[in-house]
């Protein structure tokens, strides 16, 4: 059984139909990379999966449970997923440590000392242990995004959703964030990531899925989708990416 399964997801904002029936299954310990141009629906798909948007049709299943059922408690469902955003979205009025311990203490009812100990261990591992007491605006973009990943991991999610986590970063800071994602993936975390980093997707993802105009046109192993794309739209997209020097 897949950890996360999307069935026929449809989402529109007013007259603008962003997703036109997307199916995607993510098995445990697998990494799925969502690729596609801007406006193709990658972010919206992740926001639907994390219940930050209400789908207009279709189902999201988490461990086989239909979480788009209006009777499901969305707050309880969100506790089992971790989301990392393009713009980090750390809480600016809370210290790095409090950002990480907020959900474990408030949502999961863990004791403050236990949560802090665990958070410090996580921060130490990503080399930001000495920043625990700092506020987010004192950190570089790369550091902030790594804290955001740790914050999402601190709730021990079943699946981690990464929404273009390196798109807002200076090129020299992209590497440190990708290294952390790679490490998290290597430890067996189930991950869905929207990304423009084709090279990274090729190395780390088990499956690459190409979204275009709200439709999932092609998906498969990276070597196949990125190496021998079947669909003309995929070939066109990848050619543009190559021309832009991103592959």
């Amino acid at each position, binding site marked *: 059984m897949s950890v996360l399964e999307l069935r026929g997801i449809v989402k529109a904002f007013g007259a603008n139909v962003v997703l036109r029936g997307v199916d995607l299954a993510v098995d445990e310990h697998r990494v799925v990379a969502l690729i596609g141009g801007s406006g193709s629906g990658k972010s919206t798909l992740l*926001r639907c999966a*994390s219940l*930050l948007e209400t789908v207009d049709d279709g189902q999201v299943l988490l461990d086989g449970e239909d979480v788009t059922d209006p009777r499901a408690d969305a*707050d*309880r469902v*969100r*506790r*089992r*997923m*971790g*989301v990392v*955003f393009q*713009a980090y*979205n*750390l*809480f*600016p*009025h809370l210290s790095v440590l409090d950002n990480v311990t*907020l*959900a474990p203490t*408030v*949502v*999961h009812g863990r004791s403050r000392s236990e949560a802090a100990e665990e958070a410090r261990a996580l921060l130490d591992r990503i080399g930001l242990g000495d920043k625990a007491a700092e506020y987010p605006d004192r950190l570089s973009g790369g550091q902030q995004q790594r804290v955001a990943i740790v*914050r*999402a991991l601190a*709730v021990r999610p079943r699946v981690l959703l990464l929404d273009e986590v390196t798109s807002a970063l200076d090129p020299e800071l992209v590497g440190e964030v990708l290294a952390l994602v790679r490490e998290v993936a290597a430890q067996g975390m189930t991950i869905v990531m929207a990304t423009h980093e084709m090279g990274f997707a090729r190395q780390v993802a088990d499956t690459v899925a190409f979204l275009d105009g709200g439709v999932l046109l092609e998906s498969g192993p990276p070597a196949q989708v990125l190496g021998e794309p079947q669909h003309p739209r995929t070939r066109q997209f990848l050619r543009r990416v190559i021309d832009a020097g991103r592959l």
Partner: protein
Amino acid sequence: MALRRRRRPRPVLSAPVPGGGLPPPSELELGRRAWRRRRARRSTLVALASTLVFAVVAYVAVTSSPGWPRVQATFFSPSAALESLPDIARGLVVNLQVLVVGGLLVLVAGLGTAALRTLRGPAWAPLRILATVYVDLFRGVPLIIVLYLVGFGFPALGLQGVPTSPFVLGTAAIVLVYSAYVAEVFRAGIESVHPSQRAAARSLGLTHRQTMRIVVLPQALRTVTPALLNDFVALQKDVGLISVLGAIDAVRSAQIQVGQTFNFTPYVVAGLLFVLLAVPSARLADAVTARARRRQQSGSLL
């Protein structure tokens, strides 16, 4: 007026050069600094001179006017001021009580109203509409009319348990009006927090209420503190309006003395006391505003 502008140390933008601090300024930079200094000095002198000229002209114009001796005796009589001071000061204590009690109630009621107005979903529509109507109504009605309606209307009902003290009714009227203003300040603050903050909080599993309490409100409060302090300064003088209900506050005490002596100096005394009360709050509001701006623009020039 500050004659010399104090320089706040600017954060050093470039990384320190190894083995030395900032390099010595170039001729060009020294020239620019000298020019800026000259210009600052000239501006200060011009401002000082024009202020002096204006003050002298105003003083001469007022004191040489034909009615000045009379005005001085009726409005600025030292003996009348001294005589009225104790009663007015006692009255001011009443104003301060209204200010403290009312101020706290306004904060609570304003925040509550703002929270109601930001509720989403059809189930909350009645409360949301009620809050909107309340805000529209009480921001529109002049405070003095609310004071009359509450202060004279409620006791006239003759209901048991309705307080008749002008202190309580006056405070209630002021709270009604100011809460509507403060609710809008809070609402602006809540809406100024970027939606991505809410998304981040909800994605961690926080409920709407937890998100509001832990993530949105603390950030909103920081944004609106200067505006709230500004409203507090306005409240400080408006508490003097409870005198129209007969509460013996500073204004009413002054009025009584004026009625007895036909000398208007007590009004001036009461006015000065209110100003003294307002100055520290106004400076505090300035300081908080400046701090908030600095924090937002740290590093940038304008």
